[in-house]
């Protein structure tokens, strides 16, 4: 098993000397194409950061990648919008993604552990149904979920966005793969002989052993919830409960025909993606993509 971080420091694979003349151009070409790809991925981010420094007039008159003079003004007007509502949206996104992903990871870990380590009637059927759940497009569920939550009176509340994201079939699937690989049966047996309760075994032994995989499941779900648009869009009507994505969307919808709001939208986009990119860069080393790739072989 290898983590991504190891690859960064890993030297290129030693290769047997072949016809060197022909192969010398391959790494250079590969590097060029990769750098072009990197440039393509960075340009929109660079653009939004630069554009956020432009005053409304500069936005439409100066060259796109020339910095402007309105950075502070834009930040202040974003801050002032509807009494600081933008920051409220940010906090909401953090709440939905943080709490939702945490709860989802715990539920997935428990289910994955049970599916991997216990024999019970209907286990294979349950696993098959959950696997099929991976294929169900979330969107088909959103409308009936809204109707159901509305009938119990919690549509439009924080709960209406938090509860549906707790179930994550793919997370359960990954947790099962990981519990099967990382938690030895012998250890569980030994703990049982020592008289530990099942809950204690799970909490004190299995969870720590699965922790690396759980971080991946958490990150996947965190980004998934943070990026989710349709669920909050359908569930919420009160602007003060919006996550950032929905808030910016309403900004732009209002800004149609009113280009004064454009700088605000651009500033808002810049402010909301920068922390996320930093988070991604920091957490990248905990990210176990081999778990995702290996999962399908099971």
């Amino acid at each position, binding site marked *: 098993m290898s983590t991504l971080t190891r690859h960064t420091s890993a030297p290129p694979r030693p*290769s047997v000397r072949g016809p060197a003349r022909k192969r010398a151009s391959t*790494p250079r070409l590969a590097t060029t194409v*990769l750098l072009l790809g990197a440039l393509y991925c960075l340009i929109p*981010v660079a653009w939004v950061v630069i554009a956020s420094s432009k005053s409304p007039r500069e936005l439409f008159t100066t060259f796109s990648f020339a910095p402007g003079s309105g950075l502070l003004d834009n930040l202040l007007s974003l801050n002032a919008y509807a009494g600081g509502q933008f920051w409220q949206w940010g906090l909401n996104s953090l709440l939905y993604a943080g709490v939702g992903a945490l709860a989802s990871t715990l539920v997935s870990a428990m*289910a994955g552990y049970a599916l991997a380590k216990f024999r019970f009637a209907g286990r294979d059927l349950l696993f098959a149904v959950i696997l099929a759940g991976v294929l169900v497009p979330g969107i*088909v569920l959103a409308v*009936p979920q809204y109707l159901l939550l509305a009938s119990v009176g919690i549509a439009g509340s924080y709960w209406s966005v938090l509860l549906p994201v707790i179930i994550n079939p793919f997370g359960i699937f990954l947790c099962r793969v990981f519990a099967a690989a990382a938690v030895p049966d012998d250890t569980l047996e030994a703990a049982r002989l020592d008289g530990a309760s099942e809950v204690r075994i799970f909490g004190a032994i299995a969870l720590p052993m699965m922790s690396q995989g759980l971080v991946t499941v958490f990150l996947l779900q965190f980004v998934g919830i943070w990026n989710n648009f349709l669920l909050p869009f359908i569930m919420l009507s009160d602007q003060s409960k919006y996550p950032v994505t929905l808030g910016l969307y309403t900004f732009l919808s209002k800004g149609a025909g009113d280009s004064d709001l454009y700088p605000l939208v651009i500033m808002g986009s810049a402010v909301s993606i920068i922390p996320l990119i930093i988070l991604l860069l920091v957490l990248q080393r905990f990210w176990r993509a081999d778990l995702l790739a290996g999962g399908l072989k099971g």
Partner: protein
Amino acid sequence: MFAAPAIVFFVVFLIIPIGYSIYLSFRGFRVEGGGAFGRRVETWIGFENYASALTDPEFVAGLGRVLVYGVIAIPSVLGLALLFALLLDTPRVRARSFARTAIFIPYAVPGVIASLLWGFLYLPSTSPVNFIARELGAGPLDFFGYPALYFSLANIALWSGVGFNMIIIYTSLRAIPTEIYEAARIDGANELQIAWRIKVPLVAPALVLTGLFSVIGTLQLYSEPATLRPMTTTISSTWVPLMKIYQEAFMNDNLGGAAAASVVLALGILLFSLVLLRFFQRRTFGENS
């Protein structure tokens, strides 16, 4: 039992909504009683909702658009992700970790914000491409016209999705024992042959996984066109099936119709996924034997 919370959530937020959706899709309003005093009563109407969904020109046109978009977007996302992963895995490549990180960064950008960014890059008054075109004396380029719009949208999907898929494919490339390559090199294979004949077939499971996620994600296209809509008049309020479903459910109060359309869309996604799985399975098994 540890699986209990998962089962409860699974039933409440997956099974019941699916069942409810199917139930609703067979329900509709009928006028009961005669003349001006007729009441609208919700009742069982059989496959009527399905018939009207499948004959609704807006819905069918939306399905067609999503299909065109998918045919452009899915192969380009997967193809480019595979290419980048193979390049990252090529010996003696420079700036490896920089390129990998930079290409992965868009994964952290929500679809709505990605659409906003690209939207501004497309918008004639703020686009750098158009700025250059203007300076050169050329007319403005229209990123929102037909057929450019499909490519504009597919480009957003490409930008958002290529990094994530690349990481998954790259990781499974790293899991291949290097002895295989050494053996191939001794046999005189060059890097291109190794990539195409050895690496690609061996990462086929990762390709299936990424392909499956791409198909499911693509056919649920919603937030990108919805975000771009204020910027252009080309995107109607029912441009993709999901926009149509949303409108039927929440604006036209036609829950049965919306449910039937969702079921049609879900079945379409399922069918598409299965065809893809089959295709890849045959390919992998075919090359193994």
